[in-house]
């Protein structure tokens, strides 16, 4: 970034770039300010601050940021005003990045477990000792149990692709990721309807129904920001959620739907749209497959029928369907992200996708958008070696009807490791992911770890997962390392590329996972597969974008001016019928419901029990930022949301301790009496009740979500089903 004084920017004129202007105007206006670094007034520090572009790593949005460095210390992170995907903002977590960098709880050097697992006795190793040991253990497991005997679990990180590559050249197909705990069921449903997973053009929408998503608290850029902008322009937001989230609070209408019954609502919406002929018939003729079958199928799914199932009045369902159709095609059922909720979550999302299809919103402003061209290319890597003693398939192969091979299912993989079938897995490599906290049924994850000979964790801090490992290797934060380029889809905002270079040198003895994997490869005779440097890798990624190097240097982001709407004009859909599939032939062939069929819930909630739901807030990313000092202050521990009526019956008062138990486990936490939750539902935030004493802010606080949740999965995708758990709540001390 330039450090030259831009004298044309007076100290007064910056006021013109105040925040109320549109995001784009702010983006344009504020940018020169950042170049006018040489302020000539009173100096408080010894040297001028330096400014560096980077991409935030506190969650997976990768928002563009400008880091201010004074005397070698990162003192402030501000949004990169030129970064359109985040509309030039940085959220609470983004602002708390300095606290991750300078966290006293950070891992400082390689640690080898000395005592029992979870006992917390560690021996400091040198990097050479640690890497020699890891290479020896992984090689031994590979020789004894085949290369597939090692499971690799990378989190969502810009360097995770190297863990995938290492697994491939090491020879294991057993790679599970964050996705099977998150959005696989949505991806499945939209792939099997439109042939592609869409991006929501929230900004230009006139009517949005949001079910099973909490976009104002679970921030996704640009959707979260665009939602507010759209509402200011008159977009109507209807929220279905058993819980009064902040999204519900700001919506025009909130319906506390009976949990797990969203499908009935959307089938009824479809019923109204079809039977009142509220769709575009010409469009339907050209683009949709199976409308006749769907028409017949949804006949019985009237709003009156749905009202009894989902607890939303029939006349409101009918009215909402009419309003939605009137706003089409700039209207949508928001596709959501984390859709890991029920055993039929793919079919629930199919019902939503089908309603979207009838709105004719695909590839149109205010509707669902196809992926835009970003232009980054995969680097040319040598062909991975073939190991002929390896088993035929992944460990979890065939455990769900239509799994994603590259993502797998953590839950099914875990079950297979515990059973030792179809073959044993004895090694586990995790990178920046915390299944001990995030994956339902913690006891089973502990049982799985008991089956292992060697577990290696690379992370920034002593997460619960690191706490259980044999070898823990310290990674630097996103502000201290060089990363590959990442292409990002930003809905109607942009298609862009970001990257990272170190803002400050890595602290302590921390080393990036790329370096760790290269070192391991070198020790295991695989060095030819890791012979490239990060610069070379990035150059290859950007080789078809000649302007990107300059843009990344000067603006911190590269935009590809690729086509946004009308990508599908004159093109076929990537489905079997080459149309948008209301009726899915492939499902029919496999004996699955080709159209979503509303079935009773797996388990109804008995009157003395509750359904537990989980969900995000704006301060925590999954189970990773709860221990961040700045963020922890916003929520020092999690509470159990419970409605005052059942609480009164159980003698539970606000702030009193309750015992929460399920078939999986139990936990103790404080009750928070909330009118904004259904009487049959309770809620808690994730990431507390930790095992690790290395997380000093949260250790001993709250209860662990993973301990309480039972591990059901979506039958189609193998995605986790996190809202299937029925819990008992009791006042502590009550008999």
């Amino acid at each position, binding site marked *: 970034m330039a450090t030259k004084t831009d004298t044309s920017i007076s100290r007064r004129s910056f006021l013109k770039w*105040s925040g109320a202007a549109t995001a784009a105007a702010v983006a344009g206006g504020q940018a020169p300010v950042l170049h006018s670094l040489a302020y000539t007034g009173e100096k408080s520090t010894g040297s001028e601050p330096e400014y560096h572009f980077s991409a935030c790593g506190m969650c997976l949005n990768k928002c563009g940021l400008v880091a201010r460095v004074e005397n070698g210390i990162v003192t402030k992170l501000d949004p990169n005003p030129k970064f359109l995907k985040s509309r030039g903002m940085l959220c609470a977590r983004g602002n708390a990045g300095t606290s991750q960098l300078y966290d006293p709880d950070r891992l400082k050097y390689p640690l080898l477990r000395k005592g029992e697992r979870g006992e917390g006795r560690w021996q400091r190793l040198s990097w050479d000792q640690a890497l020699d040991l890891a290479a020896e253990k992984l090689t031994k497991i590979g020789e004894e149990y085949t290369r597939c005997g090692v499971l690799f679990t990378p989190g969502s990180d810009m360097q995770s692709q190297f863990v995938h590559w290492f697994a491939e050249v090491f020879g294991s197909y057993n790679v599970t990721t964050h996705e099977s705990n998150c959005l696989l069921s949505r991806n499945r449903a939209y792939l099997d309807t439109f042939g592609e997973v869409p991006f929501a053009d929230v900004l230009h929408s006139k009517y949005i129904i949001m079910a099973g998503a909490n976009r104002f608290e679970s921030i996704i850029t640009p959707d979260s920001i665009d939602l507010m902008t759209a509402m200011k322009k008159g977009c109507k937001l209807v929220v279905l959620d058993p819980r009064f989230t902040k999204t519900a609070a700001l919506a025009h209408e909130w319906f506390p739907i009976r949990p797990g019954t969203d499908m009935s609502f959307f089938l009824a919406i479809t019923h109204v749209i079809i039977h009142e002929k509220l769709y575009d018939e010409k469009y339907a003729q050209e683009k949709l497959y199976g409308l006749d079958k769907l028409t017949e199928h949804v006949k019985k799914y009237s709003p009156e029928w749905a009202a009894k199932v989902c607890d939303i009045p029939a006349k409101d369902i009918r009215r909402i369907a009419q309003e939605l159709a009137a706003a089409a095609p700039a209207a949508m059922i928001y596709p959501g992200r984390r859709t890991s909720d029920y055993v039929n979550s793919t079919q629930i999302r199919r019902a939503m996708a089908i309603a979207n299809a009838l709105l004719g919103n695909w590839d149109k402003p205010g509707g669902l958008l196809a992926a835009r061209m970003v232009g980054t290319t995969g680097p040319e890597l040598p062909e991975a070696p073939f190991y002929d003693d390896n088993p035929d398939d992944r460990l979890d192969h065939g455990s769900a009807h239509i799994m994603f091979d590259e993502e797998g299912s953590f839950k099914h993989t875990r079950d297979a490791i515990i059973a030792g079938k179809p073959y044993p897995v004895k090694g586990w490599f995790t990178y920046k992911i915390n299944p001990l906290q995030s994956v339902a049924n913690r006891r089973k994850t502990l049982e799985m770890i008991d089956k292992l000979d060697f577990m290696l964790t690379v992370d920034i801090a002593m997460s619960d997962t690191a706490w259980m490992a044999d070898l823990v290797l310290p990674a630097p934060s996103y502000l201290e390392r060089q990363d590959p380029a990442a292409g990002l889809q930003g809905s109607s905002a942009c298609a862009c590329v970001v990257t990272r270079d170190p803002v400050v040198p890595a602290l302590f003895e921390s080393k990036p996972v790329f370096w760790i994997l290269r070192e391991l490869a070198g020790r295991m005779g695989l060095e030819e597969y890791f012979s490239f440097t990060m610069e070379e890798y990035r150059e290859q990624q950007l080789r078809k974008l000649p302007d990107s190097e300059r843009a990344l240097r000067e603006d911190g982001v590269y935009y590809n001016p690729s086509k946004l709407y009308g990508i599908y004009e004159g093109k076929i859909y990537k489905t079997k019928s080459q149309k948008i599939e209301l009726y899915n032939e492939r499902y029919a062939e496999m004996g699955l419901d080709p159209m979503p069929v509303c079935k009773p819930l797996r388990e109804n909630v008995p009157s003395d029990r509750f359904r537990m739901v989980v969900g995000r807030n704006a301060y925590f990313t999954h189970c990773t930022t709860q221990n961040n000092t700045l963020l922890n202050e916003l929520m020092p521990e999690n509470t159990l949301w419970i409605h005052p009526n059942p609480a009164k019956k159980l003698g539970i008062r606000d702030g009193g301790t309750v015992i929460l138990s399920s078939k999986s486990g139990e936990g103790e936490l404080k009750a928070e009496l909330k009118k904004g939750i259904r009487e049959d539902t309770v809620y808690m935030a994730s990431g507390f009740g930790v095992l690790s004493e290395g997380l000093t802010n949260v250790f001993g606080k709250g209860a662990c979500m993973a301990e309480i949740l039972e591990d059901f999965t979506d039958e189609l995708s193998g995605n986790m089903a996190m809202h299937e758990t029925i819990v008992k709540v009791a006042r502590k001390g009550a008999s």
Partner: protein
Amino acid sequence: MKTQLAMVIDSSSCIDCKACMVSCKVENKVPGGYWRNWVKQREPRFGKIPGAKDPAAQAEGCRTWIIQAPDFDKVKGYGDPGSMHFQPGGCMHCANPACVQACPTGATYKDEKDGTVRLNDKLCIGCGCCIPACPYGARYRHPEKKIVDKCDFCAKRRERGELPACVITCPTKARTFGNINDPESDVARLVKENKTVRVVNEETDTEPNMYYVLTTAPMNWPRKAESPTPIRWWASLAKPLVWAVVGLNALGVLVMFGKQLIIKDEETEK
């Protein structure tokens, strides 16, 4: 006209993500347990929806609420008191600041250049008289520095030509900042184009420079500015004393300032 820096806040845009609070905390090194700014919220009034009174809905067994948020298209008087909203705030840099009156040493003052209410660290004795004087609770005693701390609209950032930390970071741009006396500014334009209110305590209107756009009902929370009589008496006595003590010191500082300015000017000429 004199510069008066001000903030215009559209509470209906606020999603309560608390980015402004964390951004401020990092920028101004605010210690744990304290804040220079905040987001307050109006609790919703939950009720059964109109639908629940509807016999048909009752027959269906629905127990459903709807919270109707205020209409974004038009300002409906004072908004809908039944709906929830989030209200960002901070020091309101009042035109008639009770904290300045309550300060016995003159450490707290109204900056003539930009109209901000500032605190001179060197003069503050940490007595805390200004803390209850602020109707908004915008001041706290810094646990390590043992003096009072408050928002200064990010003076250091402004010197560098940057927006205040809370403004630049806000995802939904709920906070707008600028010179309210400059008709060309965004804040002046917003105040001109929208109905706005200032949140004050009825008994002690300190004429705050924080304007709330009337898309949401304002919340009535500011407390009465407390300034006990003995303090006022003491203040009138102590102020000249303290000034006398620090006078020489301040003179020295001024000389240094002057020197620096001269040196700077020379540098610029080069």
